């Protein structure tokens, strides 16, 4: 065995070398280090079908911007983590992004429960967070501006569901939902819309990890509803729809666009889901940004979340450019300068935006998900909704309004 001795001289030399080492790269780092951006999307779990495409859209934008020289002369580095559609896993992944990778911004959190858990980590570490979650409570958190969302909140969504049921002549509307941060405000707003038209509402909150919901459906049917709003995610909604069919329910069925999607329609027998209506915030189809996104990722009709996360990365990169600073605080202070500058140049992608910013022009970004204008609290100011119906195994567009 070799003796390991340390004398005074080697210790000194070692210490000096160490000090030199730590002093040296500090300089160079500050110049050329890449700007780090994190995505935190569900790659597994209930949101699993959406996350991978969302990451693809973000990556496409980052690659494009890097190819054109990056932002502030620096490359953008993308770090993608999986939140597993699970708050606990989401927090762990966010900790890694914030503490280890030291990202400037996190984008793409999908489930409201995940966003609610991750948001405090973000504002406390002054990391910017852009989300696609809809729960009202999210923008009511004390986030000090470190949070924006591109998804309309549930007050708006709930009202649309209620009004739709009323328009379809439903008098007794039942709301069926797993435990989510938006279940309550959703139901309250449905109730408000239905009561205004003289109708009645009932609700049931269920556990979304069960193999069958026969007893839950029994309870729903005791209310004798003529409309059921399915508020769950895809796997549990599939089971609910089956059990409702088995129980002989034949009334109006309405669900979220993210739950009753083409994949669900294909995976259950046609009669189970036939005539079900879906309501979803509508992307700005026909806009230039939307057409551009379709071309970039090669997906014919990207889902709302993909269009939203595409807008988020464009906004964040432009905000960094106009602030001349990569910190979360700088993004927070600058984001509204490029999303909704009065009389600004209308741009629909970060490349054009970066050019306009370099030319000292004000910028007003209009994206693939909509106009992307934000209120003080971080909500979007305006959004369209898309109504579809399952007809013969396909989702058919009813209207966009």
């Amino acid at each position, binding site marked *: 065995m070799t003796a390991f001795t340390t004398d005074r001289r080697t210790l000194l030399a070692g210490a000096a070398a160490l000090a030199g080492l730590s002093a040296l790269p500090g300089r160079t780092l500050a110049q050329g280090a890449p700007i780090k951006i994190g995505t935190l999307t569900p*790659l597994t779990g209930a949101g699993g079908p959406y996350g991978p495409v969302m990451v693809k859209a973000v990556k496409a934008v980052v690659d494009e911007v890097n190819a054109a020289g990056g932002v502030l002369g620096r490359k953008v580095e993308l770090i993608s983590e999986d939140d597993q559609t699970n708050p606990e896993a989401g927090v762990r992944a966010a900790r890694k992004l914030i503490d280890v990778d030291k990202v400037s911004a996190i984008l793409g959190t999908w489930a409201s429960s995940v966003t609610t858990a991750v948001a405090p980590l973000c504002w406390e570490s002054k990391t910017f967070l852009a989300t696609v979650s809809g729960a009202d409570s999210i923008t009511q958190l004390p986030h000090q501006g470190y949070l924006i969302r591109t998804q309309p909140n549930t007050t708006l969504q709930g009202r649309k569901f209620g009004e739709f049921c009323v328009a379809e002549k439903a008098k007794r509307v039942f709301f069926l939902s797993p435990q989510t941060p938006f279940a309550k405000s959703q139901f309250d707003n449905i109730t408000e819309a239905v009561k205004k038209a003289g109708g009645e509402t009932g609700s049931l909150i269920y*556990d979304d990890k069960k193999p069958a919901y*026969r*007893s839950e459906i*029994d309870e729903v049917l005791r209310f004798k509803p003529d409309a059921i709003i399915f508020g769950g995610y895809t796997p549990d909604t*599939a089971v609910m729809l089956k059990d409702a069919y*088995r129980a002989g329910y034949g009334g109006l069925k309405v669900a979220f666009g993210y739950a009753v999607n083409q994949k669900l329609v294909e995976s259950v027998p046609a009669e189970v889901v036939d005539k079900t209506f879906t309501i979803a915030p509508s992307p700005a189809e026909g806009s230039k940004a939307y057409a551009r996104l379709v071309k970039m990722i090669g997906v014919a009709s990207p889902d709302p979340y993909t269009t939203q996360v595409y807008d988020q990365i464009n906004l964040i990169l432009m905000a960094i450019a106009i602030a001349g600073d990569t910190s979360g605080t700088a993004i927070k202070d600058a984001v509204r300068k490029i999303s909704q500058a009065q009389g600004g140049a209308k741009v629909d992608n970060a490349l054009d935006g970066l050019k306009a910013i370099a030319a000292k022009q004000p910028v007003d970004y209009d994206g693939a998900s909509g106009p992307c204008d934000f209120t003080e609290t971080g909500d979007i100011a305006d959004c369209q909704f898309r109504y579809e119906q399952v007809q013969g195994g396909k989702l058919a567009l009813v209207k966009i309004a």
Partner: protein
Amino acid sequence: MSQLLQALVNGVMTGTLIAVPAIGFSAIFAVLRYPNFAIAAYATIGAFAAWWANVAMGLPIPAALLVAFAVTGFVGVVAEETSLKRLRNNGALIVAIASIALNLVLENIVRFIFGNEMRGYDLPIARDMRFGDLRIGPQQLQSLLLAVAIMAAMFLFLRYTRFGKAMRAVADNPDLARLKGIDPAKIAIVTLFLGAGLTGVGGVLIGLDTSIDPLTGYRVLLSVFAAAVLGGLGSIPGAVAGALMLGIAEELALLVVPATYRTGVGFVAILLMLTFRPRGLLGERAA
């Protein structure tokens, strides 16, 4: 009254669905003396194997069940031989933890091959039959009969065949069994094949009722574990009794507590059982 009866019927139905994987879990515990949490992945693998047989190959459901049994049994044996076996000497806790890791690996292999989307079997759906106020689904009835048939076959196997007797002997007293010339390694392999295979079949039965995705097994893991603990770890009739009790308790609980607390019922059941009767309903020794 009819509400109570309906909840009872629903409980028996969910209970039998849980019972089949619970038998698999308990059989593995009885012989190998460790809780194998990889059964969640086995259930998922069974569900996907049957999906492949049913949808891609066009086989009817009973044939698909056999495919699921064979594939999952094989995967179970391979997984044990390649990873868990060498840990068995380090105690049950180490193997149990390793089985959780194994579960994650297997689940993600399924995800890698089949993707994240939901899939459904090629099976027509039928409205429920009604008897007065009670309603019973023909498919659920079919699943129930399949589950009962599988359980009966398992009982007969354990009771009357040489292998079955040898398995019971090893479960009862491994050292004595060895003295009698029973090779525990061979018994372990057969047990794993049976246990994993049954769990795979259970995954299919659950999938028939719902839809399948890579988390199908994981969602019922807690219920299966609760059923096995409730019935007495290692006892096969106990697993069936535990599953039925749990199913009925969960459905009956819905009449008094909000539906969102349903999983809580399972936890409370484990807690009460471990507090007052640690060996479970039909368990013979303290686990």
